[in-house]
């Protein structure tokens, strides 16, 4: 069936924000993890604020997973990968893929912070004909490498990106972030096996290990533990970290030391940063009231 895709115009970069990002991120990339940590934490806080107001304006969203993944996202996009928001399709760019696409608000807030598009547009999240769809769509949002939303898609695609770089002998790298519940999808284990077989040392897969999925704890739904052993037995170099410690995250994003692809199991807290949301399953996609948003922003300001 041939037909035009969606109708709304794609977003364009915010040149001035991109300029700031270019300089600051270059500095953060070059800095040691210890040096960069505080600044990355600061950016993460402002991204968390945007996530909350973005979801507030939409009246929908997946706030719990957005807040658990924020530090992982910010450290990837601000502190690790080489990206240029003004030329988001340049072949030599590093690739970032959010496999847990339901956390679009976190991705959009981070991309906006980098200048991939104007931050003001975040208020259009999920509005009629908005390019900021409930799940990321690459033809609409610069910085999105592949459309995600159904779980278990981003990882195989990221594997293909990394394999492509390896085939071309190029040095750019790929980071993909998965949900822990998402690891129940068999397609991910197919990709894990492929990446190990092809020794894709240029690929880092990060599991946002918040121990909750949509309806309950992961271990009560379908046991993932021992998760590190699973990855290791699939041929990956495994790094287990605190997924809210920017220094640890930046260290874990460092290149493979074994020639094998790197799996980062990032222990996180769903709803991180907002006390009444933390580690509570109902905040998977519950929408905060205006009062709750006010309280949450207040907590983040502390």
């Amino acid at each position, binding site marked *: 069936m041939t037909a035009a895709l*969606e109708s709304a115009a794609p977003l364009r970069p915010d040149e001035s924000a991109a300029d700031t990002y270019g300089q600051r991120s270059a500095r953060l990339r070059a800095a040691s993890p210890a040096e960069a940590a505080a600044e990355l934490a600061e950016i993460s806080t402002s991204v968390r604020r945007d996530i909350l107001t973005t979801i507030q304006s939409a009246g929908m969203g997946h706030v719990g997973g957005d807040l658990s993944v924020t530090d992982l996202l910010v450290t990837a996009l601000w502190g690790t990968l080489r990206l240029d928001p003004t030329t988001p399709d340049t072949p030599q760019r590093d690739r970032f893929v959010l496999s847990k696409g339901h956390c679009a608000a976190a991705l959009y807030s981070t991309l906006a912070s980098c200048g991939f598009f104007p931050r003001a547009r975040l208020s259009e999240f999920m*509005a009629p*004909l908005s390019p900021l769809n409930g799940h990321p769509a690459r033809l609409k949002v610069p910085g999105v490498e592949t459309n995600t939303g*159904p779980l278990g898609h981003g990882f195989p695609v990221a594997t293909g990106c990394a394999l492509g770089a390896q085939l071309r002998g190029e040095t750019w790298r790929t980071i993909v972030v998965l949900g822990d519940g998402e690891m*129940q*999808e068999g397609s991910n284990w197919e990709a894990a096996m492929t990446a190990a077989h092809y020794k894709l040392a240029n690929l880092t897969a990060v599991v946002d290990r918040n121990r909750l999925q*949509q309806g309950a704890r992961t271990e009560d739904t379908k046991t993932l533990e021992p998760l590190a052993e699973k990855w290791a037995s699939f041929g990956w170099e495994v790094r287990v970290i605190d997924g809210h410690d920017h220094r640890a995250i930046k260290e874990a994003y460092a290149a493979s030391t074994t020639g094998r692809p790197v799996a980062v199991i990032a222990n996180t807290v769903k709803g991180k940063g907002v006390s009444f949301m933390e580690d509570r399953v109902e905040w998977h996609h519950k929408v905060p009231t205006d009062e709750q948003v006010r309280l949450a922003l207040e907590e983040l300001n502390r």
Partner: protein
Amino acid sequence: MTTAAEQSPTYDCRADFADELAALARSDERIVAVCNDSVGSSNLVRFREEFPTRLINVGIAEQDLVGVSAGLANAGFIPFVSAAAPFLTGRALEQIKADVAYTHRHVILCGQSPGMAYGELGPTHHSIEDLSWMRAVPGLEIIVPADPAETRSALRWAVASGKPTYIRIPRFKVPAVTPAGAPFEAGRATRIVDGTDVTVIAVGTMVSRALGAAALLERQGISARVLNMTFVEPLDREAVLAAARETSGIVTAEEGLLSGGLGAAVARVVTERHLVPVRMLGVPSFAPTGSTSFLLEHFGLTAEGIAEAAREILDRAR
């Protein structure tokens, strides 16, 4: 302009799904529910409370969801597989083909939040393809309930029939459209409104809008017949044929792609048996972002849109 159907109270049929499923499970121990981390979104909270051991959650794993269900059927259970329609049909298609339809297992596939019920979540979460995909799985019955009563009947029918069945469970709120005492039979459409000029054949969310269209058309002196084609498979070929013979044209309306769903099923009967103009309404391609109501409006899937298509058909026929 508001129509009678639009003024009626509307219902989220998920409540009826949950209620009827529990009722069936109470009287038939073979019934279990199987879901993919979708206890809430598949409306199984209540089922779990009442039958904690009979709710099986396989986690986020749709291939396994359908395969395990086929195995449960092998073991003598009647599994209601409950998952968001796009993932159930798209991710587990080969399992539906091989493990359920071809193996001929009595598995009842419940596509939750079908069509564009997940409007703002975008095309990956829309299930506009399911009717086309499922129609191309031999041996699968396909039911698209239009209201609370039909939702309940569909569940009961699927248990009694013993056949592999796909049911689209309505989420977008709809008014009651089923006439009291209307039979619920495979291959039998309900003629909700009789009419002689033109026929609207609709399913699911489109049925009440078709009724709205008939009301609009009536004010313009056009007599429209409205058929609720609850079973897309087996199709009520006789009802289509009668519409082709007795009215001047047919409009089909479905919350789904135009390529291979209800419209295609109707067009086959028309072109092979009795020619009459057909106008298909549905979704042409991946939809943009927006609420379900917005998107239905966007694609002309409204009483006005259906009425307009009916007038066009009549113009062509004349």
